[in-house]
């Protein structure tokens, strides 16, 4: 992960940064991620999770991905249980507060099948920000004195050269690839994000390349009518995939809320038995369907429409 500055710049310089179309299929996008790479995951908890991309990575049989996200929800279960990832770097990992502790996370971490490196939420954010700024680290004032710090070999304490205060330096995170889901973008990768941005702008600029999935691809003219809404610039993006309901059963702000009924079903299944329950879920919902659309059919039209009704109501008074 500690790449030299010039190496990071070289990787950007190598890429075609012209304004060109880069729309691909979900399967083609998955093939752009290589075994063993570090992957930054956009969104947070149940929000704007690039679930379709994770679905495709699992089906493509990727191995040993090292994944980083501000807060990890059920996508972390899927990544561990499928064997796609054996290492997750995050501040919090379980399906969601209402569902208690993820037994899938517990099973993999406690049996040492996989690693869960814990950082504070702000440390995750500043690590992506340092990466986006082209700096090797940023200083911060939390994590000090805690066992969260004691468990981590990477950060360094230092005395501020100006004031003498004790500060913590956290190293930049520059993932090989970022996978981010947005409400809309154009065929060039100009991405507009509504509502919560989480760490996605820093993540996109920190990563060596970005794979965008989007609810819909819009024209470049539409992007240019509101350029202030563009949060990720096209030249950071390597590929664009249009996937409706691309976060289901999680939410995409303003478009759909989580499919709570499915999340209740999922959590009761996998938290009852993290091995056989998870196996059953993967077989039925990830390996079974012929395509993402087929997966959405399994989730069910009624639940998708209900989630969409709730999602769109955010702007209602």
């Amino acid at each position, binding site marked *: 992960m500690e790449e030299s500055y010039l190496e990071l710049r070289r990787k950007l310089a190598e890429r075609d940064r012209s304004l060109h179309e880069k729309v691909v299929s979900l399967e083609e996008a998955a093939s752009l991620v290589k075994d063993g790479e570090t992957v930054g995951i956009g969104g*947070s*908890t*149940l*929000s704007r999770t690039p679930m379709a991309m994770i679905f495709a990575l699992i089906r493509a049989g990727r191995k040993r991905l090292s994944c980083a996200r*501000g*807060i990890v929800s059920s996508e972390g279960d899927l990544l561990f249980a499928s064997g796609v990832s054996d290492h997750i770097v995050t*501040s*919090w*990992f*379980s399906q*969601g*507060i*209402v569902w208690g*502790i*993820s037994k899938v*996370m*517990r099973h993999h*971490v*406690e049996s040492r099948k996989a690693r*869960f490196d*814990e*950082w*504070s*939420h*702000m*440390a995750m*954010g*500043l690590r*992506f920000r340092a990466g986006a700024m082209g700096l090797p680290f940023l200083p*911060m*004032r*939390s*994590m*000090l*004195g*805690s*066992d*969260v710090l004691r*468990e981590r070999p990477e950060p360094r*304490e230092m005395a501020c050269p100006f004031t003498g*205060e*004790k*500060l*913590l330096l956290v190293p930049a995170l520059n993932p090989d690839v970022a996978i981010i889901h947005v409400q809309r973008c154009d065929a060039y990768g100009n991405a507009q994000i509504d*509502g*919560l*941005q*989480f*760490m*996605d*702008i*820093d993540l996109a600029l920190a990563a060596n390349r970005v794979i965008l999935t989007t609810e819909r691809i819009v024209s470049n003219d539409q992007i240019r009518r509101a350029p202030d809404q563009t949060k990720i610039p096209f030249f950071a993006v390597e590929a664009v995939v249009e996937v409706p309901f691309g976060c289901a059963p999680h*939410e995409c*702000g*303003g478009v759909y*809320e*989580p499919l*709570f009924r499915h999340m209740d079903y999922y959590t009761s299944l996998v938290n009852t038995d993290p091995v056989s329950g998870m196996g059953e879920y993967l077989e039925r919902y990830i390996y079974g369907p012929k395509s993402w659309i087929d997966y959405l059919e399994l989730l069910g039209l009624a639940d998708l429409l209900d989630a969409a009704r709730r*999602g769109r109501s*955010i702007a209602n008074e």
Partner: protein
Amino acid sequence: MSSSDAYTASELLAVMSSRLLKDGQVVFAGVGIPLLAATLAQALHCPGLTILFEGGVIGPIIEPGKLPPSTNEQRCTKRANMVLGSTDVLLLLQRGYVDVGFMGGAQIDQYGNLNSSYIGDPSSPKARLPGTGGGNDISSLTQMIVAMKHEKRRFVESVDFVTSPGFLRGGTTRRDAGLPAGGMYRVVTDLGIFGFDDTTKRMKVVALHPGATLEKLRDNTAFELAVEADIAVTERPAARELDVLRKLDPARLYIA
């Protein structure tokens, strides 16, 4: 549960902690009891209180019956004054804009340290817990109120793992570690309200709730609580406090 004669432990927690909030404060809140308490305070005695959410939200309006499932979903942004990135909302803590951090707790010790990472030895834990989230940042950078159930296994002499720092090992150890600001202010449980000694930084009894006794406290606490001569007794939850609370959470997700 329609009269104020009866209330649940969670309702008691929410009411008692809402009374600790002051008008005009900026409160960094977790979901569950903290959010209910902050919203209750806004409705009753703190119209100018501002809620911040870790997902990146400043000043949302929480609708009764539509409590967000976490601080990272769109419901948190409803009618907010501002939405920004999560790193930036956390940096507001570091800059000093936040008066109170308000969280729930799984395990706390005599110096107010919180554990949400491991049960048992971290190198071979009995249970891996979800981790800090923003808890470490909030408790490192601002004054804290923690609301939690009072049980012996939760009130331990020393936590297995310091996820979110209180006063570390007491005295000046928090400041010496590089945390000059903030610290535990109050712990609110279903038995009473607790503060911390100015010098030793050990937990002390500030008030008992109606019906609670020092014996009951000792039976449910695995360390010695400092007890001062004058311990207050809190006023039981009022009907209007319970009414607002029950309208906020009609499905009783958090107050059951």
